[in-house]
């Protein structure tokens, strides 16, 4: 009984410790990476975003928007 409990405690201490160490390192590495990229590989001036080929689901969204614009235009025309 005691043994199982102490195993659990160990697991908790090491587990949480490791999770924190790991993610802390990730914070450092990520920050350094971002800083280096910001300095040495800055992104070119934001060009117009070119839609890359998307999955079916996303297409609908794009179409919806366009279709909304068109519908509005047509509606305006009709209601003349």
């Amino acid at each position, binding site marked *: 009984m005691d043994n199982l409990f102490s195993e659990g405690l160990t697991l908790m201490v090491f587990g*949480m410790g490791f999770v924190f160490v790991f*993610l802390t390192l990730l914070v450092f590495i990520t920050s350094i990476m971002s800083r280096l990229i910001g300095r040495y590989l800055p*992104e070119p001036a934001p060009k117009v975003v070119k839609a890359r080929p998307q999955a079916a689901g996303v297409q609908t969204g794009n179409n919806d928007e366009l279709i909304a614009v068109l519908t509005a235009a047509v509606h305006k025309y009709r209601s003349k």
Partner: protein
Amino acid sequence: MDNLIELWQASGIYNISVGQLTMIVIGLVLLYLAIRKNFEPLLLVPIGFGGILANIPEAGMAFSAVENAIHFAKPHVLSELASVLGVAGNDPHAITEAYHSSNASVHAAASLVAQDAGYSNGMLYNFYSIAIASGAAPLLIFMGVGAMTDFGPLLANPRTLFLGAAAQFGIFATVLGAVALSAFGIMDFSIQDAAAIGIIGGADGPTAIYVASMLSPHLLGAIAVAAYSYMALVPMIQPPIMRALTTEAERKISMSQLRHVSKTEKILFPILLLILVALLLPDAAPLLGMFCFGNLMRECGVVDRLSDTAQNALINIVTIFLGLSVGSKLSADKFLDMQTLGILVLGIVAFGIGTAAGVLMAKLMNKLQGGNAINPLIGSAGVSAVPMAARVSNKLGLEANPQNFLLMHAMGPNVAGVIGSAVAAGVMIKFVG
């Protein structure tokens, strides 16, 4: 007439046990929750349906060939199995027990005997072997999730990773709770069981299934059901805890807009994460490796057709098989047990503690930095349950301050929680696996 009797004696009504009937009802309840209450339907519909299929009497869809042979108990088959398994006599229970504790080569030999006698593995048993016992399905789902994950918000504010770390306290506190229940003799969980139960607090379905399949397969059904159910209940579990631990003023904190994150950063992040995993915790490499692979496919911009397939056709196919396979583990003898009750209680405790730890960590970070950079409401998103938990943060933030959109800020800790629980999974596999 004999045929009529035979048909009747082979029917479900004649053979159904109370346990099977109960499990079928539980399967129907899961379907109801999934369809009407929108409880993680992508998983709970296949799990619930698989649970019903697994409990159809006489169909043996979740049984191996040997288990089917034992069930139908023809004397000469039983005696052959008994001899292969080294059991004296023909007692089906003794044979079953010997089969489950046999080593791999005896197991294989018993299988051949059963096949010779004309029995075959049930379809769900096959699905389980290929999808879960091999570990493949959770990893492929993790790859797909990686391909769906945008690390932009996390990269814009990497300190939110601490929130994702803190929320994993739910996992380990629950492990302690489970061993405590065993220590006090209330339940009978091994340390492996405890670890597998704790991972429910990771609020991440594939991670939970992966860990449970490795550490505690007999609890897999209950653990998966608990994990997905509580993920669906996040909008009910988290808000009271979040309100109790924060003041109105804290909830009103508005956070500065996230900076733009460049394509290069997004491409490098999964690679750096992979290298860190490789150097520090190889046991988490399968899970986080596939996750990073999916994310790299998404971000690198040159394999969009692979990324699209990983996010759609492949993950959908794997989800169908994974769900049915998990359902195949919903058998009465394993699910209708006090342990399941323990798992359900511990699971919700895990969610609660994880939520609280995330919120408190956010407050601590504010205190240490001496500012008000972080709205503590986004701490709760560290449990994962992507994107439900982030939406909850957003909702409570809007309640306190209608101009305060926390969604993107909460996505940082939200995806950090996925990484955090995969790391926790690696530690547990390392220590008790």
